[in-house]
C-alpha cells in the first residue's frame, strides 16, 4: 500500500501548484511536499531493503491481460526511488530559481510531479505491462516538457522527434513484453526472473531480446536513437537536469538492470549490447567536444555516459554490473549540477553559446568553484567519484573474456573514450570560466546571481567529493545490494568480486589515467584545428533531418494515397466491380451443374420477342447514352417492358408498382435533365470505354450464369406458409399484399421510412439551391410566346375533373389491395400522379395553395399512422405490427371486413403521396420562372 501511495502521492499533489499559480513560493513548497514525503515514507525501508529484503505487493486489475497493479521494492528500485526523489527535490528547488516567479512555473511543477509519479512507477513496478504504462507516460510527459515552449519551432520539432523515437521504442518494448508473457506465462517480474533458461532457449528469444533492447535503447538514447536527446534541450533547463540526464534516460538502463538476470550471460546479449554501447560512448563523447551549445555539450556527454553504462552491462559480468550501478549513481550526481550550472549561466548571460560565454570566473567565481567539482568528476579527476568509475570501467574493459582482436580493441577504445571525455570536460570548464572575455552577451552587464543557486550545487559537489573519498562505503551499502537484487538473488548466491577501491594505486592504471588526461588536454589544445575540421563537415541536425524526412514521407504518403484514392468515382467503382467479380468467380468456377433439374418453361414467341426487345432497348440506352433525352426515353421503355415481364410471369402487383414507379422516376429524371446539358461530351479516353465494356460484360455474364443456375434448380421455400395462411391469418386473398402489410409488414414499415427520408433529403438538398446558371437553353422568357403557353387550355380544363376521378380510382385500388392486386403504395402513386398533373397543367403555386395539406406533415402523418397501427397491438400484448381483422355482418350493409392492415396501408398511402409530391414539387420548384422561391411542402 505504501508503494501504491508512493506513486500516487505526486499525483495527489499535482493540482496544488496549478491552484497556487499566482503564488510561486507556495507553489514550489507544495510541489516539494511530494518528493520530501516520499523520502520520508521510504526511509523506514531503506535499511531493510538494502540489507536484501524485497517488498512485493500486488493488486489485481486486468487478469485477462496479465496486467496487475503490482509493486516491487528491492535495492535496485530503492536506489532509483532515492535518486528520483532526492534529485527531484533539488530540481524543484532549482526550478523555483529558474522560472523566477513566472506563472508557467506551476505548469512545469504539475508536469514534473506527473513525471515523478511515472518514473516512480517504472522503478517500483512488479508487473512488466504495468511498468510499460509508466514507461510510456514518461515519454509523453517528456514530449510535453520538451514542447514546453510550443510556440518555438525548435521545441515542437524536438518534442516530436523524441516522441517518435521513444514512442517507437515503447512499441518495440510492448511487443517484447507480450512475447515474454507468452513464453513465461506471466508478466510478474518475479516469475520472469526465474525463467531465464526458458526464455533464453525459446525460439523467440532473439526477437524478444532485439525488441527489448530496441525499447530500452531508444529510451536511454543509445546510438542511433540518441538523436532525440540533444534536441530535448529546448526544454526548460530543470527538465534537462531531471529527465534528460538524471532520471528518464536512465529508465532504459534501469530496465536493462531489472531484466539483467534473464537476458545477460547469453552471447546474443553481448553482441547486441556491447557494440551499441561502445558506439554510443564514443559518438557521444566525440560530438560533445564540438558542441558550442553548453546544454548540447552536456547532452552529448550524457549520451556518452549512458553508452558507457550500457557497455558495462553488455560485458555481462557481475563486476561490470556493479561498476555500471556505481557509475549510474555518479553520473546522476555530477550531471544534475552541471545542467543547473548551464541553466544559471543561460539565464544570466542570455546565451548558451560557449563561443560567447567566456571568462565568467571574474563575474561568478563561486559558481566556477562549485562547478569545478562536478566537471572534474566527469573528467575523472582523482578523489572525486567519477575517477573511481572511470578506473573500474577500464579494469572491466580489460577483463572482458573475448578472444582475438576484441581483447585489444575494447580496452583501446575505452581509453580513447575516457580521453575524449577529459577533453570536453576541460573545454566546458575552460571555455566557460576562462578563455578570455565574454563576447557580445545578450545580457550586459551581467546580473548578480541569486545565491540560493549555490545550495543544490554545494549539495551535489559535496556528494561527489564524499563518494570520491569513500567509494567503499557507497559500494558496500548501495551498489552491492543493488547488484545482488539485480541478480535474482534467490536463485543463486553471488560472490561479489573484490574491488580495488584505493584511490591512488600504483602501476599501470595510474599511467592509463594520466594518459587519458594527457589525451584530453591534447585534444582540447588542438581544438582550433579540430573545430575547423568539424566545421568543414556537413552539419547534421537530427531534428531537421527528421523534419525533412517526415515532410518527404508525408508527401510520398500523399502521393501514394493519391495513386489509389484520387477522387475518381469511376475508379472506385471499378475496384468494387472487380472485387465482386473476382470473389464470385472463384466459387462459380466450382459450380459443376450450370443448369438445375427443374423443367424449363417453354418459350412463347411473344415473351421471346418482348425479351429481345428489352435487350435492344437496354443496349440502346448504353449506346445512345450521350443523347440524354433519348437515352432516358429508352430507359423508360425498358422499365415499361419489365412491367410487362412481371405481368407475364404472374406478378400483377409488381407490374403495377413497377409501372407507376417507373413513370415517376422518369418524370423526376426529366426534371433534372432540364438543368443538365442535353448531351454528354464524347469521352476522350477511348480505352476506358473498352475497359468498362469488358467489365460490364463480365458482370453481365456473371449475373446471367448465377440467375440461370438458380432459376433452373427446384426450390423449397417458406412461401407455402404464406399461401396457406394469407386468408386465415392475414385476412386477405392477395398474398403479396398480405406479405407486405402483415407477414413482412416490418419491411414495408422500413420501406416507407426510406421513402420519407428520401423525400426529406430531396427537400433539404434543393432548399437553398441557387440557380445561377440555368442550364437548359429552352428555359427562356420568350419561350412563352407562340405555341408554348404556360397552361394550355385543353390540358388545364380537362386535368381538373381528372383529379377527383383519379382519386376515386386510387381509393378503389387502395381498398381492394388486400384481396386483389393494388394496395396503399400503388394508390398513393396514382394520387400523386393525379396531383402532379395539376402541377403540370396549372402551375405549382396554383396547385400548392389548393392542397388540403402540406406534404411534410402528410409524410409524418403517414409514418405515424403506420407506426401507431403497429403499436396498437402492444395494447393487447402482441408484438409490434400484429394485425387484427374480423368479418362483420350488419343488417343492411351485409358482410364486411375490418382489418388493421388497412390502417397500416393508409399510412403507406399517405407517406407515398406526401413523399412523391414533396420530391416532385421541390424539384419542380427550382424551375419556376421567378426562381426557386419559397420552399414547398
Amino acid at each position, binding site marked *: 500500500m505504501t508503494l501504491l501511495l508512493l506513486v500516487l502521492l505526486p499525483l495527489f499533489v499535482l493540482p496544488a501548484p496549478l491552484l497556487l499559480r499566482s503564488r510561486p513560493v507556495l507553489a514550489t513548497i507544495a510541489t516539494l511536499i511530494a518528493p520530501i514525503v516520499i523520502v520520508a515514507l521510504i526511509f523506514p525501508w531503506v535499511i531493510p531493503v538494502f540489507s536484501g529484503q524485497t517488498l512485493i505487493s500486488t493488486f489485481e486489475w486486468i487478469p485477462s491481460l496479465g496486467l496487475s497493479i503490482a509493486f516491487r521494492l528491492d535495492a535496485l528500485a530503492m536506489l532509483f526511488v532515492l535518486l528520483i526523489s532526492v534529485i527531484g527535490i533539488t530540481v524543484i528547488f532549482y526550478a523555483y530559481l529558474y522560472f523566477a516567479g513566472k506563472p508557467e512555473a506551476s505548469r512545469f511543477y504539475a508536469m514534473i510531479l506527473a513525471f515523478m509519479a511515472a518514473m516512480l512507477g517504472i522503478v517500483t513496478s512488479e508487473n512488466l505491462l504495468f511498468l510499460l504504462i509508466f514507461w510510456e507516460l514518461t515519454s509523453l510527459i517528456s514530449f510535453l516538457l520538451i514542447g514546453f515552449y510550443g510556440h518555438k519551432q525548435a521545441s515542437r520539432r524536438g518534442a516530436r522527434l523524441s516522441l517518435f523515437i521513444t514512442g517507437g521504442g515503447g512499441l518495440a518494448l510492448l511487443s517484447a513484453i507480450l512475447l515474454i508473457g507468452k513464453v513465461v506465462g506471466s508478466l510478474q517480474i518475479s516469475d520472469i526472473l526465474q525463467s531465464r533458461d526458458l526464455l533464453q532457449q525459446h525460439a523467440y528469444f532473439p526477437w524478444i531480446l532485439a525488441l527489448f533492447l530496441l525499447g530500452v535503447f531508444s529510451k536511454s538514447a543509445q546510438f542511433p536513437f540518441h538523436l532525440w536527446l540533444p534536441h530535448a534541450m529546448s526544454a526548460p533547463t530543470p527538465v534537462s537536469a531531471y529527465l534528460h540526464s538524471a532520471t528518464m534516460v536512465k529508465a532504459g538502463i534501469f530496465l536493462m538492470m531489472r531484466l539483467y538476470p534473464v537476458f545477460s550471460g547469453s552471447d546474443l546479449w553481448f553482441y547486441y549490447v556491447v557494440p551499441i554501447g561502445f558506439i554510443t560512448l564514443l559518438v557521444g563523447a566525440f560530438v560533445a567536444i564540438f558542441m558550442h551549445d553548453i546544454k548540447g555539450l552536456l547532452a552529448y556527454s550524457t549520451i556518452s555516459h549512458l553508452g558507457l553504462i550500457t557497455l558495462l552491462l553488455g560485458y555481462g559480468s557481475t563486476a561490470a554490473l556493479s561498476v555500471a550501478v556505481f557509475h549510474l549513481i555518479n553520473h546522476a550526481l555530477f550531471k544534475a549540477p552541471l545542467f543547473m550550472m548551464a541553466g544559471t549561466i543561460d539565464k544570466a548571460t542570455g546565451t548558451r553559446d560557449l563561443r560567447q560565454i567566456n571568462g565568467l570566473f571574474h563575474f561568478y567565481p563561486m559558481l566556477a568553484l562549485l562547478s569545478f567539482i562536478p566537471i572534474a568528476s566527469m573528467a575523472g579527476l582523482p578523489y572525486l567519484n567519477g575517477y573511481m568509475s572511470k578506473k573500474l570501467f577500464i579494469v572491466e574493459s580489460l577483463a572482458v573474456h573475448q578472444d582475438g582482436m576484441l581483447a585489444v580493441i575494447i580496452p583501446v577504445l575505452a581509453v580513447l573514450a575516457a580521453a575524449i571525455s577529459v577533453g570536453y570536460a576541460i573545454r566546458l570548464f575552460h571555455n566557460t570560466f576562462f578563455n578570455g572575455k565574454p563576447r557580445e552577451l545578450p545580457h550586459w552587464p551581467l546580473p548578480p546571481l541569486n545565491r540560493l543557486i549555490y545550495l543544490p550545487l554545494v549539495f551535489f559537489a559535496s556528494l561527489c567529493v564524499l563518494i570520491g573519498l569513500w567509494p567503499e562505503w557507497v559500494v558496500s551499502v548501495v551498489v552491492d545490494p543493488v547488484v545482488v537484487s539485480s541478480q535474482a538473488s534467490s536463485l543463486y548466491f553471488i560472490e561479489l568480486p573484490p574491488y580495488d577501491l584505493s584511490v591512488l594505486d600504483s602501476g599501470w592504471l595510474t599511467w592509463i589515467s594520466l594518459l587519458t588526461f594527457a589525451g584530453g588536454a591534447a585534444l582540447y589544445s588542438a581544438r582550433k584545428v579540430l573545430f575547423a575540421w568539424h566545421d568543414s563537415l556537413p552539419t547534421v541536425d537530427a531534428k531537421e533531418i527528421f523534419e525533412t524526412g517526415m515532410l518527404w514521407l508525408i508527401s510520398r504518403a500523399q502521393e501514394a494515397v493519391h495513386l489509389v484514392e484520387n477522387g475518381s468515382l469511376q475508379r472506385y467503382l471499378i475496384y468494387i466491380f472487380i472485387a465482386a467479380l473476382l470473389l464470385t468467380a472463384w466459387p462459380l468456377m466450382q459450380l459443376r451443374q450450370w443448369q438445375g433439374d427443374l423443367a424449363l418453361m417453354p418459350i412463347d414467341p411473344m415473351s421471346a420477342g418482348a425479351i429481345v426487345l428489352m435487350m435492344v432497348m437496354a443496349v440502346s440506352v448504353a449506346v445512345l447514352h450521350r443523347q440524354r433525352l433519348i437515352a432516358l426515353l429508352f430507359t423508360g421503355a425498358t422499365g415499361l417492358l419489365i412491367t410487362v415481364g412481371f405481368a407475364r410471369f404472374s406478378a400483377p402487383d409488381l407490374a403495377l408498382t413497377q409501372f407507376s414507379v417507373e413513370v415517376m422516376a422518369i418524370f423526376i429524371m426529366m426534371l433534372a435533365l432540364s438543368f443538365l446539358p442535353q448531351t454528354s461530351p464524347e469521352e476522350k479516353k477511348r480505352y476506358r470505354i473498352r475497359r468498362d465494356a469488358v467489365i460490364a460484360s463480365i458482370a453481365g455474364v456473371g449475373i446471367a450464369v448465377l440467375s440461370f443456375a438458380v432459376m433452373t434448380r427446384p426450390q423449397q421455400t417458406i412461401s407455402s406458409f404464406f399461401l396457406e395462411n394469407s386468408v386465415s391469418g392475414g385476412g386477405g386473398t392477395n398474398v403479396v399484399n398480405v406479405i407486405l402489410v402483415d407477414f413482412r409488414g416490418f419491411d414495408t414499415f422500413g420501406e416507407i421510412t426510406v421513402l420519407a427520408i428520401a423525400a426529406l433529403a430531396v427537400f433539404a438538398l434543393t432548399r437553398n439551391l441557387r440557380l445561377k446558371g440555368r442550364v437548359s437553353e429552352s428555359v427562356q422568357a420568350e419561350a412563352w410566346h407562340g405555341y*408554348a403557353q404556360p397552361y394550355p387550355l385543353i390540358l388545364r380544363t380537362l386535368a381538373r375533373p381528372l383529379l377527383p376521378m383519379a382519386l376515386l380510382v386510387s381509393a378503389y385500388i387502395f381498398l381492394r389491395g388486400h384481396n386483389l392486386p393494388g394496395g396503399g403504395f400503388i394508390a398513393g402513386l396514382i394520387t400523386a400522379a393525379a396531383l402532379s398533373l395539376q402541377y*403540370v397543367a396549372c402551375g405549382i403555386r396554383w396547385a400548392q395553395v389548393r392542397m388540403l395539406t402540406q406534404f411534410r406533415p402528410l409524410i409524418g402523418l403517414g409514418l405515424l399512422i403506420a407506426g401507431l397501427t403497429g403499436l396498437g397491438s402492444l395494447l393487447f400484448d402482441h408484438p409490434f405490427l400484429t394485425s387484427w381483422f374480423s368479418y362483420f355482418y350488419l343488417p343492411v350493409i351485409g358482410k364486411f371486413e375490418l382489418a388493421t392492415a388497412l390502417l397500416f396501408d393508409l399510412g403507406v398511402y399517405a407517406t407515398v403521396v406526401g413523399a412523391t409530391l414533396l420530391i416532385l414539387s421541390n424539384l419542380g420548384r427550382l*424551375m419556376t420562372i421567378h426562381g426557386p422561391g419559397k420552399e414547398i411542402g
Partner: protein
Amino acid sequence: MLIYAVYLALALFSAAILLCLYRLMVGPDIVDRILALDTMAINLIAVIVLTGILMRSNVLFEAALLIALMGFVSTVALTRYLLRGDLIE
C-alpha cells in the same frame, strides 16, 4: 373461334407495338419518340386486356388503368418539358 380472334388481335397489337418501336428508334425528332411511346402505352393496354381475356380473369384491370393514367401523365409531362424545358410551373 374467340380464342383465335384474341390471338390474332394480340398479334396485330404486337405488330403495332413493334411499329411504334421502330418510330421510337428512328425518331427523327423527340416528339416522334414521345408519340411512339404514348401509342405504345395505349397498345399495351389492349395487349393487357386481351391477355386478361385469355386468362379469363380481370386481375390485370388495374394494370391497364394504371398504364392509361400514367402513360397520359408522362406524355403530358414530356411534351410540357419540350415546350418549356421544364415540367412543372
